[in-house]
């Protein structure tokens, strides 16, 4: 016998109230990061030791700027999902949990906004 209502069972949300949303998003962002990370490792790491002009030239290429923006955004979202699991595992008090999650989300949004602004500024006016 189950205490779940039929509607609850149909929605399949379980005790986390969000079902497999977190699990699925973590996997989808992971799969997206496989080609993006390879591009980053092979292309962007080539900028190590490069002069400012070469760095600006690379990042103002439309394809590079778009891939860089996609890489940073997906990376930050995957980071957010991963850090949530770490916080859920080790932080027991609800207050600290909420505080740390808000902190991580705030930092992620700040980092995302900074990266987008930087890329737009590097690309410059058309």
């Amino acid at each position, binding site marked *: 016998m189950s205490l779940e209502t039929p509607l609850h069972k149909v929605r399949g949300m379980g005790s986390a109230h969000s079902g497999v949303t977190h699990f699925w998003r973590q996997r989808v962002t992971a799969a997206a990061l*496989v080609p993006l990370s390879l591009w980053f490792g092979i292309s962007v790491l080539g900028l*190590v030791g490069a002069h400012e002009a070469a760095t600006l030239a690379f990042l103002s290429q439309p394809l590079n700027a778009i891939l860089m923006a996609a890489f940073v955004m997906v990376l930050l979202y995957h980071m957010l999902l991963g850090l949530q699991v770490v916080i859920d595992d080790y932080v027991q008090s609800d207050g600290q949990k909420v505080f740390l999650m808000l902190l991580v989300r705030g930092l992620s949004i700040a980092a995302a906004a900074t990266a987008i602004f930087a890329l737009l500024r590097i690309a410059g006016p058309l």
Partner: protein
Amino acid sequence: MAETPHPAQRARPLSPHLTVYRWPVTMATSIVHRATGLALSAGTLVLCWWLIAVASGPDAFNEFTSLAVTPLGEVILFGFVWSLAYHLLNGIRHLAWDLGYGFAVPTANLSGIIVIAASIALAAGLFALAYLGHGGYYQ
């Protein structure tokens, strides 16, 4: 009888913990996956710092690169590259598990060893590629 401590105060045997186990490969790869994930979180913020430094003109750019070329900066960069390589390869291993492949103990042990070895090779390769020609291969 008076010397016998209360049962609740006696040193009870504890279940084996991290310091007691000989680490199986699968346990080590799991812990390192989380540790590299945390390291990459910090690295992602540094990546955003680099982007805003590039966008903010020569002074900010030179300040960032002068920190990056110090021995500590290079160790951090190599740590970031290896963490990315490891988390990427072990992440593919996790995705295979999610699809139901590779759960047999000998397979999981073998794939763990392959991931550790391949991550070191990939990180060393990328690092060598990055330093080839001293000054970036886009110049």
